[in-house]
């Protein structure tokens, strides 16, 4: 049990009028799974579009894919897997009521997320310097390969939407970390850590599919 806690509830679950804390815990977790289902379908639309365009322009997609840097993409894959590992350990620490460890593991997770975004920034910059971006007039001209445009349009939509999720995840994890630092969690109450971690794992799950599709097979 944490001895110093800035939080008024100090490790106790919030008092709810409409349900007991056990039910609240399961409902919160189930709610997140439900939300993750809609997230999979949100990305699913893009995966479907990618599948169709790849089928239509098989040759061009595999050539366009070679423009992407496998080493940077691969490094980012490893960064996200390690971040997922850290957030899983944060949940484990929360289940044992160790707020200090929750706070450190969440910090490592957030640092991995920041590393991911920095690498992504360098990747986007490289594409920008090669003129491979939709706002470039040359990129939009008719003599620029239509299939190339489709590939990079999908690349930016898919990795961009994913990057927004990374940023949202960072904000959520920072907020949970602040709660952990205030000594909010205990063996009896750690719902936000577990639910926040579920969201973070989804960010990893999506990238697990994005990496081979965009960088490896195109």
């Amino acid at each position, binding site marked *: 049990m944490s001895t110093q806690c800035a939080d008024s509830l100090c490790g106790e679950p919030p008092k709810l009028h409409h349900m007991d804390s056990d039910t609240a815990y399961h409902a919160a977790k*189930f709610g997140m799974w439900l939300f993750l289902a809609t997230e999979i379908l949100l990305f699913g639309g893009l995966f479907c579009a990618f*599948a169709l365009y790849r089928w239509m322009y098989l040759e061009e997609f595999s050539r366009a894919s070679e423009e992407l840097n496998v080493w940077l993409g691969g490094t980012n894959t490893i960064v996200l897997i390690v971040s*997922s590992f850290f957030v899983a350990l944060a949940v484990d620490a929360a289940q*044992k009521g160790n707020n200090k460890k929750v706070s450190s593991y969440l910090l490592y997770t957030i640092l991995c997320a920041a590393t991911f975004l920095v690498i992504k920034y360098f990747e986007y910059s490289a594409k920008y310097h090669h003129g491979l971006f939709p706002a470039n007039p040359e990129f939009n001209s008719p003599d620029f390969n239509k299939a190339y445009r489709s590939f990079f349009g999908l690349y930016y939509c898919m990795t961009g939407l994913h990057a927004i999720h990374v940023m949202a995840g960072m904000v959520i994890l920072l907020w949970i970390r602040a709660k952990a630092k205030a000594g909010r969690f205990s*063996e009896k109450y750690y719902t936000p850590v577990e639910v926040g971690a579920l969201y973070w794992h989804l960010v990893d*799950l999506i990238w697990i599919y994005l990496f*081979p599709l965009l960088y*490896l097979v195109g």
Partner: protein
Amino acid sequence: MENKTDNSHMGHILPFRVYFSVLLALLALTIITVAVSRVDLGTWNIVVALLIASAKALLVALFFMHLKYEDKLTWFYAFIPVFLLILLISGVFIDNPFRG
């Protein structure tokens, strides 16, 4: 304290080695998927890449996300979007090749 083993009402606590083994498996599969992509297998490249990605996704879901220890309802909602996505992609591929 005497109730320490009875945590059935709360989430599952897994030993550290489970998380660590999953991490190692995920890193190994990442290296394998990059290595396999360097070999030209034709159409099989994408099949292998998707199979490896799905194995990784399953490891993350089952152990990192504790899906293995969740109830049937959670399992249902975890897999229904996968089913719907397969339906969507199949629908598009049944339709598109037959358009004029």
